[in-house]
């Protein structure tokens, strides 16, 4: 997780650097009085790199993803809850010998 976090921080730093480069480029174009058609190629490459790093970090940092399929092996419903509100106590368990010696002390 530390490694993922480091990659995420690195990706954010790359994006910030790309933003700074674009602002500087625009300033340069204002001096040269040309139009701003789009960021230069290296800034675009930087942006894509930053996107890649941030995505890797976002997928690895939060931890294991849980399954959402209702019929997957770990999610399938095995039994319904036992309806404890309607539990009755005069069942046949009364005649089974329960463990004697079970006492609540104090």
């Amino acid at each position: 997780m530390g490694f993922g976090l480091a990659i995420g921080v690195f990706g954010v730093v790359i994006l910030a650097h790309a933003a700074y480069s674009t602002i500087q480029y625009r300033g340069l174009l204002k001096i040269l009085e040309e139009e701003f058609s789009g960021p230069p190629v290296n800034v675009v490459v930087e942006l894509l790199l930053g996107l890649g790093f941030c995505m890797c970090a976002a997928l690895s940092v939060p931890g294991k993803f849980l399954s959402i399929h209702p019929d997957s092996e770990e999610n399938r419903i095995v039994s319904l809850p036992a309806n404890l509100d309607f539990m009755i106590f005069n069942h046949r368990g009364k005649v089974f010998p329960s463990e004697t010696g079970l006492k609540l002390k104090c």
Partner: protein
Amino acid sequence: MVGAAEEAQLNRLENQVDNGGGGAWEYLCLVRKLKVRRSEKVLKHGLSILNNPNKRSKLGGDEWTLHEQVAIAAIDCQCLDVAKGCITALQAKFPESKRIGRLEGMLLEAKGLWGEAEKAYSRLLEEDSLDQVIHKRRVAMAKAQGNISGAIEWLNKYLEIFMSDHDAWRELAEIYVSLQMYKQAVFCYEELILSQPMVPLYHLAYADVLYTLGGLENLQAAKKYYASTIDLTGGKNTRALFGVCLCTVAIGQLSKGRSKEDKESSDLQSLAAMALEKTYKQKAPSKLPLLTANLRNLKLLS
């Protein structure tokens, strides 16, 4: 709703605690969360925590929840003095509490003193007439005394007020099925499916009751609901697969004299038969010849 992963975790914790490893408190919390009824184990391990002053003080405020859980488990296992001890301890801590009044009522029920329990519950209901759990305990008491029609009456009155309580609908459906009043059971299961459409077990139970009722429309509806169960479980529910096959056979027998023009897709039953074969090959290969012979007799397999 107990999922497969949760059940595996519960069993693992149970084994661990039974064989002397730690983790009793996590086991008890999981039992409480999943609402399973494992009273003997809860009683044994709960008492082991409560009788050990170190572990008790570690729980802090949760020890009273544990007292309640152990009290109910003790009542279920008929260790009435343990239950009385827990309830006394709880009463000392929380006097004038309705939850404890309920526990006392349950203790009276377990002792067989139905009249006194009824009086205790009526007194609690006078204070708060909308307490759901006390209403349900009254239904349970009627059921325990064998007065099933009284239980049905109470339960219907309860459901008129609290229509969204699906546990109660399920209980009513099971009571009707036990009395073979299948039409009313069908109504209850329909309410259940309406409120929780993604639980395959309700679809399966509904299809079972429809198949039991019989008649062409019921059989066709049953086949549809078996199919929806197969859909919701990804084809892994063997009972639904068998249901589809048997419904098709029964429909075929009923509509033998009628026109066979509306022969709906006969893919469903052959696919179900093939899926059954595959499941048996995987899980019970020794029974596969029996299955294949039966399916051939029913003309579901070529």
